[in-house]
């Protein structure tokens, strides 16, 4: 089983590289992202079903309401079966942040950080950093012109520069610190939050105004809470690079 999982969930090394947050804090206009490992493909329904079978506490009929809202895995025919209308090899969706974290943890992995995800996602098929390539940006935006939640099997398209598939064009994906770029529920009233970083400066300070897809990802992530599930939100896992032997 483990081998099976490993084959399906092979990781590739991404980075190191520089990522410019859309709303950078002072002195953080460019963030150096160390190299890390990232799933080549998003987690599929079949993989998540196996996880749920091994960890029945994450079945939709068992999961606590704190950890997943009512939409959790609601496309499945039953708590332990996908049914015929769910594409086994398609990206899983309807998964909360808690569930995504638990899945990755079960694989000795974790969710990628926003910086890691964005670093991987700014690559086109040719370039590590295509964040100012109008054609690349237009391709990403085109996804938003396709309504609904139709997906393809994962790794259906061409991999990007790092060998990663489908960061754009299939489903939104959880990042570990999805709320960090914004004022999260828990720290909304916290005086230590640097408000100007998020709000006061408005769009005027956004570092790369042409990257409208990045605006959308921030808008989308900021609409989420940790128990949120939506039909077009999936995830993939990441891992630190193995420490080199001394």
């Amino acid at each position: 089983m483990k081998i099976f999982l490993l084959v399906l969930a092979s990781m590739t090394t991404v980075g190191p590289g520089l990522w410019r947050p859309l709303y950078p804090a002072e002195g953080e206009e460019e963030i150096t992202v160390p190299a890390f490992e990232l799933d080549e493909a998003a987690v599929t329904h079949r993989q998540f079903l196996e996880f749920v079978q091994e960890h029945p506490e994450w079945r939709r009929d068992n999961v606590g309401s704190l950890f997943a809202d009512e939409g959790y895995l609601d496309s499945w025919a039953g708590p332990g079966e996908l049914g015929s209308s769910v594409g086994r090899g398609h990206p899983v969706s309807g998964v909360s942040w808690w569930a995504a974290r638990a899945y990755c943890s079960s694989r000795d992995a974790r969710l990628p950080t926003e910086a890691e995800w964005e670093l991987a996602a700014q690559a086109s098929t040719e370039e590590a950093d295509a964040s100012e390539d109008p054609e690349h940006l237009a391709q990403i935006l085109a996804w938003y012109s396709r309504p609904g939640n139709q997906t393809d099997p994962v790794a259906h398209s061409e991999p990007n520069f790092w060998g990663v598939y489908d960061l754009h064009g299939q489903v939104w994906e959880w990042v570990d610190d999805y709320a960090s770029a914004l004022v999260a529920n828990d720290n909304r009233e916290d005086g230590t939050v640097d408000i100007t970083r998020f709000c006061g400066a408005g769009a005027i300070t956004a570092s790369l105004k042409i990257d409208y897809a990045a605006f959308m990802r921030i808008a989308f992530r900021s609409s989420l809470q940790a128990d949120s599930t939506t039909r077009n939100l999936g995830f993939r896992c990441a891992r630190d690079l193995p420490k080199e032997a001394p």
Partner: protein
Amino acid sequence: MTLNQTIMCLAAAALLAGCNSSTSTSESSAPSVIPEANAAGPIAFAPGLASALPSSEVRGWTPEGDPITGEVTYAPDVPAPIDRDYPAKVIIELETTEEVMEIADGTDYTFWTFGGAVPGKFMRVRQGDTVEFHLKNHPDSKMPHNIDLHAVTGPGGGATSTFTAPGHETVFTFQALNAGLFVYHCATAPVGMHIANGMYGLILVEPPGGLPAVDKEFYVMQGDFYTTGEYGAEGLQPFSMDKAIDEDATYVLFNGRVGALTGDNALKAEVGDKVRMFVGNGGPNLISSFHVIGEIFDKVYPEAGTRFQENVQTTLIPAGGAAMVEFEVEVPGTYIIVDHSIFRTFHKGSLGMLQVGGDEAPAIYSGQQSDTEYEAEPLK
């Protein structure tokens, strides 16, 4: 009011930045203000839009009676006038969707909507009503959405309280302090794109006593659209961010589609009818020079404000603004509704029709009486 609007603009800027604050106002740099009652008092064109405000120091009404489900309608229909003489609690539900519909014959576009259509559903409440507003975002949506109702007094016009992920529902309550006709729209980043995709509509806040009775009321809303293909290019046309930024509209439309108000879809009235049009402009970019060919507006409430102007040919409607126009139709025939920035009408789609039936009125308009040649002097 100016200060109040400034606050809302700041809130909008915050939203553009993707600021998610559903309750807190700590990021708002301007002080909160309770708008004062208009001391001089608007001149009451009884029973027009102007109305007395409660005399208490803090503006506000207490809802009476049982909660009411607010009636909402698709354009060009308008909910019936309100016959209540008291402020009520009104519950309104609106669902945001993202769906492919025809923008012109043979041309599809992915519209983002309030209620499944462009423009969004028309809402009608009474000044002083307490509105419990439910915003649902369809589970198939890719985007989060929210709503900024210009009828709302409060941060973001409701946008900061209605940021809604796909499959979720948010609720907030506001009191309709000011009477008037107001635009609502989505204010989620990137705001321009959400509006350009059709996320706007109108909410009418009637003054106590209502508006003067008319025979026909219509809901017309203009919007500009930006597609990668040219006007009329077939198939599913993606949104063009470049054209939107350049304000180079591919389509300028009434009610979200070429032909939404022509042919079988034309607005209809009879000779002798008093007609009122609630006209909004969703933008995102263009200002409308709204005109009905062959009619003179007996009354226009410019910018949908309290006072009216009379005998107007063309009225300017700002993006994110509205107007109410009223006229009586005396002569039968087809009246063309246009944005008199006229290339938009003949090349971008901003053309509607009002078909008036009934008996001819030759004393007012004869029709063509003759067509003959005449002896002209040669041009020099």
